[in-house]
């Protein structure tokens, strides 16, 4: 449990509407690795990702990060820890009233001291994801794939130690997926901990993922 990375310890989650969605999950997602979690829709993949990101509190059990039980921490400490997490939501949650570039810069707002460097990084990320010409456009006027890549840029800015991605390829065509996988490979190469939830067979076939899990009936089973 002291290893670098994320870990679940007897992680259980119940919705207030009843039913045990996740049931005593034990898993480790070490740093420098990309892990893929597959499962049917409604299996609880997004919920598990939100628990790992500290956006939801477990019903029982713990989430550990770098040997610390972060899910048990009091709210201000957890909020501070979450600055090390980049996340792509299944439903993206981009802000429609501000431009793409401003959306990407959002996670950096509490850290304005490195502003010029951060601005350069944001432009570079958008460029690499084929969005360079669209940085002044608001997300509402973009296609699904473009919006999703913008959300990926927002997750990657500041090179967070923990990267959590929920169905990151859902709106991408085959040509774009290579670029996305390349960015994730760079992140793991730099010692990041990458966890991807997806039921996209194209991701399942990718070499990037050194460990694969399957979520079913509230249990996370390791796939060979």
């Amino acid at each position, binding site marked *: 449990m002291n290893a670098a990375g994320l870990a679940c*310890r007897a992680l259980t989650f119940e919705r207030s509407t009843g039913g045990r969605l996740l049931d005593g999950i034990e898993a480790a997602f070490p740093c420098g690795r990309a892990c893929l979690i597959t499962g049917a829709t409604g299996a609880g993949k997004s919920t598990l990702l939100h628990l790992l990101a500290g956006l939801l*509190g*477990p*019903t*029982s059990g713990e989430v550990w990060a770098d040997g610390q*039980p972060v899910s*048990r*921490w*009091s709210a*201000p400490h957890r909020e501070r820890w979450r600055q090390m997490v980049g996340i792509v939501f299944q439903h993206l949650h981009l802000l429609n009233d501000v431009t793409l570039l401003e959306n990407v810069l959002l996670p950096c707002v509490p850290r304005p001291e490195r502003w010029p460097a951060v601005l350069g990084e944001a432009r570079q990320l958008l460029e690499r994801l084929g969005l360079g010409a669209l940085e002044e456009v608001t997300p509402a006027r973009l296609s699904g794939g473009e919006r999703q890549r913008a959300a990926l840029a927002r997750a990657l800015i500041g090179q967070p130690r923990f990267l959590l991605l929920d169905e990151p390829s859902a709106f991408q065509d085959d040509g774009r997926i290579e670029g996305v996988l390349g960015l994730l490979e760079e992140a793991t190469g730099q010692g990041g901990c990458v966890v991807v939830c997806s039921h996209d067979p194209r991701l399942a076939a990718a070499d990037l993922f050194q460990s694969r899990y399957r979520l079913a009936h509230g249990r996370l089973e390791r796939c060979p």
Partner: protein
Amino acid sequence: MTGHPLVLAIWLLDLTAGAIYLAAGLRLLALLPRWLPEQSDRDQLVRERSLALVIYQGRWVLGLQIVALAALVVGIGNSWVAHVPGAMCGTGVLQALGPAGPQTLLLRLLTILLLYCWQVVAAIDDQRPDMPLALVHGRLLLLAAPLFLFATWRFGQAMGAVQSQGPVSCCAVLYAQAASPGGQAMGAMISARTWAALCFGGVPPIIVWGWFQWRRPGRIGPLSTGLAAGLLLLWIGGAVMALKTTTAPYLLEVLAHPCPWCLFLREQGRAGFALFGLLAIVAAEGAAGFTSALIGRRHPTAAAPAVARVGLAGRRLWLAGLLFAILAAAPVLLWRLRFGGWLR
């Protein structure tokens, strides 16, 4: 007077604080006996969320109590004076309130002091992610509950007494007290000069001590901070006497008028609020320094934030002491500058 907006405001503040306190207290009673931080089962996680809410609630109780005390002092010192026949300042109002009046004041001060110490421990605990002091501040919060109840009850009694009260003789009682055999003996034993020397002579040591505590908080333990807190309380007693016997005559421009409540009147620029407020800060930070030093010694996991809080208390101590000395000496020095001599 019992229908005065300020009285109603205090009732409302007390009732609100009481309801929040009750909710927090019931939660604490349910979670403290079963607090098991090493477990991560459902019940413990629920207890941890519950405790986070309790801390939030406790801070509201403290805030509401401070506002209620401020309202009570404004009422006694200013607003209710016109409503009590014969009263010219807060001394008259307190006479009308009967013994319950000063009691509710004192009990409220103690409640706030204890809640402030609780808040200090909770804030130290906040600096650590794993809440190592949960049991300590949980119990401390419960400890202040009886004081809170007693203070509110005595406030009700005081409000009951004021209705049946005839005209009061206000500050005249102070002269009667001074002329009584006990008062004369006291006056002969400790003169105004002695009180002034105690008060102003005490300020440089407070500044030096506060400065030292601020710069070197790690070298101060619970014993010295506890001793300092006790001495500070004694000094505050002397400072109040000096305010009555030395500052008051110059502010009121009379030879002698040992009435603290006259300092709260508009004619005196409501100087009493600042003067007594600073003394309250000295008392609170003395207690905070002691509490933090004790926590730092007893709970090594929280030592770093506790030591930082000891330093903060030190800085506030010397600042408040200095400011008090300036404010309390200002009327005397201004008089000297204007008229070239002393009153006596």
